[in-house]
């Protein structure tokens, strides 16, 4: 649980960082996000919010707004990583919730 809270904290942090960006910044950010989301998919633990951020990133990039696109792609990557951390934590932590 603590680990998970820390990851969530990271998501908060990641969401507020941003800088002026280009197409190649976006390509790199998107590649990172897609790789993380693919890993989450292998664990069958994707989040709908990751998918939404990815869609928003692509939409912003298509409109030429690379600042927004990079920001959304980074958010997607952070969310995907949080979902991976959740899956890994729950792999054993679920037992704590079982009714005994």
């Amino acid at each position, binding site marked *: *649980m603590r680990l*998970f*809270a820390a990851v*969530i*904290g990271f*998501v*908060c942090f990641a*969401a*507020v960082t941003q800088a002026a960006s280009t197409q190649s910044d976006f390509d790199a950010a998107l590649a990172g996000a897609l790789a993380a989301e693919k890993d989450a998919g292998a664990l*069958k*633990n*994707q*989040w*709908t*919010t*990751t*998918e939404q951020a990815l869609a928003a990133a692509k939409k912003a990039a298509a409109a030429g707004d690379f600042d927004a696109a990079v920001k959304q792609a980074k958010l997607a990557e952070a*969310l995907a990583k*949080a*979902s991976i951390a*959740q*899956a890994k934590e*729950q792999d*054993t*932590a*679920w*037992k*704590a*919730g*079982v*009714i*005994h």
Partner: protein
Amino acid sequence: MLRVIAVLIAALFFAGARPAAAADAVNPDADFKAFRDYFTKKFPKVPLNDFVNGPYSMDAGLRKQWEAIEDFPPYDFAVDRGKDMFATPFKNGKTYGDCFPNKGIGVRQDYPYFDLKTGEVITLELALNRCRETNGEAPYSYLKDEMASLTAYMAFTSRGKPFDIKIPNDPRARVAYENGAKYFYSQRGQLNFSCASCHVQSAGEHIRTEVLAPALGILAAMPIYRSEWGGMGTISRRFVTCNSQVRGVPLEPQDENYRDVEYYLSYMANGLPISGPGARP
């Protein structure tokens, strides 16, 4: 941002609200007893067999509206359609009944079962589509429409029969059961809720006007006509909806994990009567 913080708070809240924990291996018999004890102690006024009526077993105002709707329930159309479908042969002359014990009548309570030949959990919905494919027909969507009509009819012919789910003495069956329990208790989605967060720890509590259904017997009323959906939905639809509501990307209907969680929940409901099809808010 606010959303993320809300999730953090929710996560901490649920960490504190869990029942007493123990990390022992899964034991179906002990699980069954503990699960039942938990709900009967939490809701001492609800008769055991009434748990299959979900939210209506624990809220008088909702129950009255439900009884008014049960006077002439909207799922009647699905039951009749399912009956017609059962009576209509496939192109090869076979029928649904040919794929099931007792021609498919009054057998709902035996599903899902663990198939020792293929080493997997077979749900009623999966069995129906496999029946179609075996007979050269295209499978149906698992979520509603035809599939819900078929299961509505099969549940209707099984009303009152107690769930009779068996875990054969085979390590693969044990693995499927444990995987089902794992899926049920694992927190998922950005909201970081497990199935149990809502239907065990918070069962009986209100979310807006809805009352969260207790996990005990929750599948007995399936398929259901949900006012929120404006139509029928299957067990597959229920699982898919649950996952999206906590902001998790749902799995494919009849994914192994969904079948295993259905196996786990149905085993927990052993002895409780089939009440489907049902009507829900």
